[in-house]
């Protein structure tokens, strides 16, 4: 508590002295303190790596439950808590409660916030009422509520400092993602790709909640915030780059949701995030590349203007949202030091780019079963440079409306969804929680009604032929685009990973296990079954000289919807075993924070 006050005081003093960049300087400093976990992503680079090493590969097998906390909410619990000094801030799915817990007072609840929200927002949240967490800055805790209210709470008292409305739930715009504080602004994305929203990234003034800028995923140049210097793969994108790729005014209901994690490079002064699928899921109904859906964005956080963009899946035919996190690392490729951005896309390709310029360096499959593409054209002189080659057998656009295309890998869940990967600078490896699921996909014509689902495809999902596992947890070399090791998991791994200086990597499973594996080999070192399936992200912190590992369990999200009853067996009658096992036989609903530590002696 004292630390928060002190930090706030210093932050205010700095603001008086130098102007507007206080929250940023404060946060950069705070995120370098491994005892805290001050951002939903751990740090601005989205590494999810901690320098703490009290818990290590030798002793992690002695881990014990130190304490637990029930959130009182049953829905799917994504994200994880923030830890700042002696205070822990825990969020929940709808109704979006926030608990401030004092770790120095036997985890007493210091304050609690529970907004009043119209429950009619619940059914317009595609795939469960999840929330991915809180942000801290300028002495405030920021929460993006389901109804798109962005609220600033006094970190000490829970009092509302300001609120801002980021969207309109009656049109299917909802809030699920975690805000990110960058400089003197709070950045927040929006959900609703299955409701035909025109999605955007928005920045609000940290002191007042006033909208500073808003960059849409599709539309005219002044709405998507691009200029004549904005590039794609090294070339200027030119005028009306988005409008030219949509039929008529379809961009107005074009989707491109922005509910993933946000990263930031303070030196380059660039913010990175991904945009999601174009609406509808029926590709025939929206001819064109549908720019800039399915795109990696690099924007200036002060103005919102994009420096570069890269569209991974032009004219999506499978719901391969591009929202997954951008992980920033500094590594050498071919003996040359590079500032890298690595991204594990829903489409099954792991991308490595130069984050200063947007140059594409690596694009390789991170699940060998990925079969919709033969790969990305890496020839800079080619007319299709940077585009994935779509195989006819997997093209739902080619097959057309009312035709069922079978055996596409990955499924719409993607080879990875929002569950964030971790990067360890010690091993220079990425640790990636993955789905190992394929699908049949049949597009058909739909009509748009504001606030109603706008889907337009029939799906059924199942594990790849011959396999009985629905997930893998892999280690990935982003410099070469190769899998270093891969552990099978019965269910999709839908939990955010954590890497530590102790040489251990943590993740959760849908059955509810918290697992610790050796960072070098992937060997399982520890597991403990928490009260419910884990779709939350693993966090670590230090308090009173002791390292703790914390994770939210509480099954749900899209994983809970798709896998609760088991996947559809295309060879019906063989029984729900192996890859078709029902998650409901392993776990049930319930939100709990479980915190682990080593025994005292």
């Amino acid at each position, binding site marked *: 508590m004292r630390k928060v006050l002190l930090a706030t005081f210093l932050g205010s003093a700095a603001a008086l002295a130098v102007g507007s960049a206080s929250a940023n300087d404060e946060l950069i400093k705070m995120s370098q303190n491994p005892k805290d976990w001050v951002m939903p992503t751990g740090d601005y680079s989205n590494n999810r790596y901690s320098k703490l090493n009290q818990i290590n590969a030798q002793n992690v097998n002695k881990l014990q439950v130190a304490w637990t906390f029930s959130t009182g909410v049953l829905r799917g619990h994504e994200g994880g808590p923030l830890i700042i000094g002696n205070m822990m801030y825990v969020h929940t799915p709808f109704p979006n409660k926030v608990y401030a817990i004092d770790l120095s007072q036997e985890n007493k609840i210091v304050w609690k916030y529970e907004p009043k929200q119209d429950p009619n927002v*619940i059914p317009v949240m595609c795939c469960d009422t999840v929330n991915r967490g809180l942000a801290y800055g300028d002495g405030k805790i920021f929460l993006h509520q389901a109804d798109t209210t962005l609220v600033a709470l006094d970190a000490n008292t829970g009092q509302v400092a300001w609120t801002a409305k980021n969207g309109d739930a009656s049109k299917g715009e909802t809030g699920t993602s975690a805000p990110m504080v960058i400089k003197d602004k709070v950045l927040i994305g929006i959900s609703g790709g*299955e409701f035909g929203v025109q999605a955007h990234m928005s920045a609000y003034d940290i002191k007042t909640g006033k909208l500073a800028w808003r960059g849409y995923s599709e539309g005219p140049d002044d709405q998507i915030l691009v200029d004549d210097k904005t590039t794609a793969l090294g070339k200027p994108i030119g005028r009306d780059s988005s409008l030219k790729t949509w039929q008529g005014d379809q961009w107005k209901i074009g989707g491109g949701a922005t509910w993933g994690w946000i990263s930031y490079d303070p030196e380059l002064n660039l913010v990175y995030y991904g945009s999601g699928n174009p609406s509808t899921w029926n590709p025939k109904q929206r001819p064109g590349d549908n720019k800039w859906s399915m795109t990696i964005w690099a924007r200036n956080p002060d103005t919102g203007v994009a420096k570069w963009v890269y569209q991974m899946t032009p004219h999506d035919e499978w719901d391969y949202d591009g929202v997954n996190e951008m992980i920033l690392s500094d590594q050498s490729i071919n003996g040359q030091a590079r500032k890298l951005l690595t991204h594990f896309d829903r489409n099954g390709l792991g991308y490595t780019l130069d984050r200063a310029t947007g140059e594409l360096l690596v694009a390789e499959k991170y699940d060998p079963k990925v079969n919709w593409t033969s790969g990305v054209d890496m020839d800079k002189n080619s007319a299709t440079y940077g585009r994935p080659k779509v195989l006819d057998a997997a093209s739902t656009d080619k097959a057309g409306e009312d035709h*069922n295309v079978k055996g596409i890998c990955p499924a719409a869940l993607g080879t990875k969804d929002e569950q964030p990967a971790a990067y360890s600078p010690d091993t220079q490896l990425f640790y990636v929680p993955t789905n190992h699921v394929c699908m*049949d996909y049949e597009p058909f014509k*739909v009509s748009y009604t504001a606030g*109603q689902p706008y889907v337009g495809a029939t799906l*059924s999902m199942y594990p790849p032929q011959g396999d009985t596992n629905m997930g893998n947890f892999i280690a990935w070399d982003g410099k070469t685009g190769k899998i270093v090791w891969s552990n099978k998991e019965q269910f999709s791994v839908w939990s955010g990973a954590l890497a530590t200086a102790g040489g251990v990597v943590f993740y959760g499973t849908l059955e509810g296990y918290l697992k610790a594996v050796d960072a070098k080999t992937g060997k399982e070192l520890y597991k403990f079954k928490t009260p419910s399936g884990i779709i939350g992200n693993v966090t670590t912190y230090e308090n009173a000289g002791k390292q703790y590992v914390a994770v939210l369990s509480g*099954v749900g999200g899209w994983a809970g919807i798709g896998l609760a009853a088991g996947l*559809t067996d295309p060879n019906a009658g063989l029984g729900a075993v192996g890859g078709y096992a029902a998650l409901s036989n392993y776990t049930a609903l319930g939100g709990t924070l479980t915190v682990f530590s080593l025994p005292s002696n």
Partner: protein
Amino acid sequence: MRKIRSVIAAIIFVASGGIAVADGSGDPAALKQNETGEWLDKDGNPTYRINGDTVDWYTYSGYRRYHSDCHVCHGPDGMGSTYAPALKDSLKTMSYADFLGTVASGRKNISTAAENVMPAFGDNPNVACYMDDLYVYLRARSNDAWGRARPGKHEDKNEAYTKNEDSCMGKK
């Protein structure tokens, strides 16, 4: 009571050659077909007609529509999810009229323990124009007349159905 009923049901099951187990709308046996190709039970409620691996058009169409608009909450094949109930089971006690009312107007079940809200689909043509299709598919699932699979062979949609569909969806 439940036991007695299931014994009776079992007797009927045997006696009638394995077709009829009553659901929320009564006996699902298909007696006649209307001009759109829709099969009706003795009370005139829509029902399925499945011969081996061949299904009627409504069951097939309902499968497709369910796995676009409904499965994102209710899970694959009407099996339910961590988020919403299994409609395969709901239809065992829910009548055709209640089904139409719930889909059109939505439903709220909010208490300290649960916050389940189903939206009103009455204004959404992608759902509202296919209410009977959805009902027929789910009725087949509810009676285990169709399993957890995509229907393969099916009756084709006829002209009267296409005409209704186009006018409902606002197509010319």
